[in-house]
């Protein structure tokens, strides 16, 4: 039987027990055919020390390490070289007596199991680790099958690669360890159980494994577990929630670490949902004082948006809309006036702030979908750092709505890119286009270009334009009140009067399109506003 022992490392010397780990392995009375260290570019003496102890070292880039895929590669490689057994140890696990590995391997091969893990002890009796391990590492060995779920719940697939042995061939057959940065052992164990296999626990193979008790490390560990449970809800669904540790009289000693770890768990399990809300709240905290203190309206707001909002709230439709001003932001402000009885200026500021702060969500979820959690958090942090953009939030001008439209379009694009089979992306695209067209008239060109890109993508992907047609029809449906209003007022079904001027020129050039022209508009369509007006 060929046995390999593998330890993934990263700056193991800094943990303080690296030499003890290697010495303890060296004292084992078992024939190890390979002793391998897979080092993630440590910057301390981890590798030289391992080499002195006669270990074979493979160095990989730190960013290439993954608890699942790295181990899976190792197992595949060992399988190819004819190994039967692989033992995984952590860089801070010290085998407690010379026969520990032999007992583990014997247990593995004397039972009909694919993998088994040994007992891990904590040095400190009154520590959180010791308390939590009482349930995970009992004093008797046993094998676990799927039928034990009712008794053991989430402990059924529990397994720890900190000190575990696996039969190489069945593991490879099952696809090896999945890609994950935490809990690859439990995921594989779950796979084994679901395929009808068993895993075992050997209480006679004992090792000492101490986790750091520093608050930050406790928090991080709790966070990792929480995140793991959130990422793999199927585990909790199938096996139930984690059971509480046994009650102990010395709980008072470990209450604080337990609270910190629990807080980390809570954060890890909900952080992806909570983070955008935290940014959203932070933005409102920043914006509210400015909204209250900046009480002198800008020219555009005083002349147009605020009176329009007040007219909208009063149901004075003639002055609530105008071909010069696209209606979304004044309408939104009008609704705020109606509900809260604020004045038009305050309502315009709030409408702008609502749109800008809500922009956090499409930006965050879109980024997370494409680039992952970390980039999403940094992106939203930079978004909040765009102080000039957030001035729109208390100026009360329409650009806040435009930013939201652009961000919704971004979200829709990410959704279409990753999940083109679902409707969410298409609906998001429709709403984004409608927002762009109803928030600023000059965004029509951009909306048109993005629509062309979408249509092109749809044709290439689906070979027929049905989705494009659906999106176009829905967008037109959303815009139809605005188009009808402008058709009646200025004679052309457009979002804003400047587009009417363009359309008039098009209709003149192509008389067949004359049916788009209302011959009796209520207002004469002029020749366009002056350059000075544009500067407003």
């Amino acid at each position, binding site marked *: 039987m060929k046995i390999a022992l593998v330890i993934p490392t990263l700056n193991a010397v800094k943990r303080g027990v690296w030499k003890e780990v290697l010495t303890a392995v060296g004292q084992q009375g078992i024939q190890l055919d390979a002793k391998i260290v897979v080092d993630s570019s440590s910057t301390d003496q981890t590798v030289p020390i391992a080499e002195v102890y006669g270990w074979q070292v493979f160095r990989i880039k730190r960013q290439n390490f993954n608890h699942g895929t790295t181990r899976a590669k190792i197992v595949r490689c060992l399988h190819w070289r004819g190994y039967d057994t692989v033992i995984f140890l952590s860089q801070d696990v010290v085998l407690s007596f010379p026969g520990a590995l032999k007992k583990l391997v014997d247990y593995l091969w004397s039972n009909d199991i694919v993998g088994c893990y040994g007992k891990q002890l904590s040095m400190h009796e009154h520590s959180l680790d010791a308390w939590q391990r009482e349930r995970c590492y009992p004093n008797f060995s046993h094998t676990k099958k799927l039928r034990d779920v009712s008794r053991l719940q989430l402990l059924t697939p529990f397994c720890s690669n900190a000190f575990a042995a696996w039969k190489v061939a069945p593991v490879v057959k099952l696809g090896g360890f999945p890609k994950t940065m935490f809990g690859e052992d439990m995921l594989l164990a779950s796979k084994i159980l679901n395929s009808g296999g068993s895993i075992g626990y050997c209480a006679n193979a004992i090792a000492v494994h101490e986790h750091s008790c520093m608050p930050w490390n406790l928090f991080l560990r709790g966070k990792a577990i929480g995140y793991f449970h959130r990422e793999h809800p199927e585990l909790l669904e199938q096996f139930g929630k984690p059971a509480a540790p046994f009650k102990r009289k010395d709980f008072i000693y470990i209450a604080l670490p337990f609270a910190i770890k629990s807080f980390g768990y809570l954060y890890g399990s909900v952080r992806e949902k909570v983070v955008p809300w935290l940014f959203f709240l932070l933005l409102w905290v920043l914006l509210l004082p400015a909204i209250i203190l*900046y009480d002198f309206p800008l020219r555009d707001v005083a002349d147009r948006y605020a009176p329009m909002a007040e007219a909208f709230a009063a149901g004075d439709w003639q002055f609530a809309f105008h071909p010069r001003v696209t209606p979304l932001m004044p309408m939104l402000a009008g609704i705020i006036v109606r509900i809260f009885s604020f004045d038009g200026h305050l309502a315009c500021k709030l409408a702008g702030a609502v749109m800008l702060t809500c922009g956090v969500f499409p930006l965050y979820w879109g980024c997370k979908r494409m680039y992952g959690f970390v980039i999403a958090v940094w992106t939203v942090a930079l978004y909040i750092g765009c102080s000039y953009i957030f001035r729109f939030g208390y100026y009360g001008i329409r650009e806040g709505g435009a930013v939201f439209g652009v961000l919704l379009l971004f979200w829709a694009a990410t959704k279409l890119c990753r999940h083109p089979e679902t409707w969410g992306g298409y609906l998001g695209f429709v709403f984004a286009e409608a927002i762009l067209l109803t928030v600023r008239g000059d965004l029509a060109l951009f909306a048109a270009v993005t629509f062309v890109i979408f249509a092109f993508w749809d044709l290439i992907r689906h070979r027929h334009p049905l989705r494009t047609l659906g999106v176009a029809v829905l967008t037109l449906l959303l815009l139809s009140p605005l188009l009808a209003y402008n058709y009646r007022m200025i004679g052309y079904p457009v979002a804003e009067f400047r587009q009417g001027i363009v359309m008039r020129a098009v209709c003149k050039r192509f008389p067949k399109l004359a049916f788009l022209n209302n011959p009796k508009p209520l207002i004469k369509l002029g020749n366009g506003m002056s350059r000075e007006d544009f500067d407003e």
Partner: protein
Amino acid sequence: MSDFVTTVFRGLYPPFLFFFVWGVVTKIWERKWHKFDTLLLAAFLIFELLAASQVWLFYGELSTSKRYMWIAVPLYLPFAARGALGIWSLLKKSYKGRIFAFLATAALVATTVHNFYMPVTKEQSSSKRRYLRRLSLKTATAIHKTWTPPPDAARLTDLRYMRCDQYQSGKRPLVQTDWLRVGYLSGGQTYPEFFRDLNIPPDYIVVMNNGKNFPGYIRIAMFPGDSGGKYVVYIYKRKGLP
């Protein structure tokens, strides 16, 4: 031309432009460039191109405004975030680097908060602005107090008074002034210039530091400036109004 180039550059939000370039370059260098990145970058560039060229398209003049371009800035933030993260990864390797990163972040946050509130603090702290603001509110209150809507033409609701390129709220009094907010604050609206063509005169005329006789108007108020008579407001009301 140089103004245009400067505006376009400022429209690209220079504080994060370095991070953006760093992010794009490292992404290409590390061969992590995705098709979606091309789409995102293209969307950003198209938006900025259209925002920068729309005045030229309509009026043939090379000019734009920063705020039109800032709308699309969030589209380049994922690249900037990658760049910022890359720089942070480099800096955190050494103690000095961490100190530098901490100081730079603190400076960036302080600048951001300062920039964010600058218009508010200026409005509240600059004695000139505060004074003008108070004077505007005083003027608006004076107009509001002296205004009694004429029974026959309290609002300008006829379609004759609407133009497609200029909004008017239909409200009165019509206040002709360079202080464009006084009209709204007094409960009416700023006098739209196209009303002159329709032979609708302003109800009030407000001028600063240039008191003179306007035919058909009587002076109803004058606010002397507190700061050595630098700013004096004259309010004129049309004769014949109740």
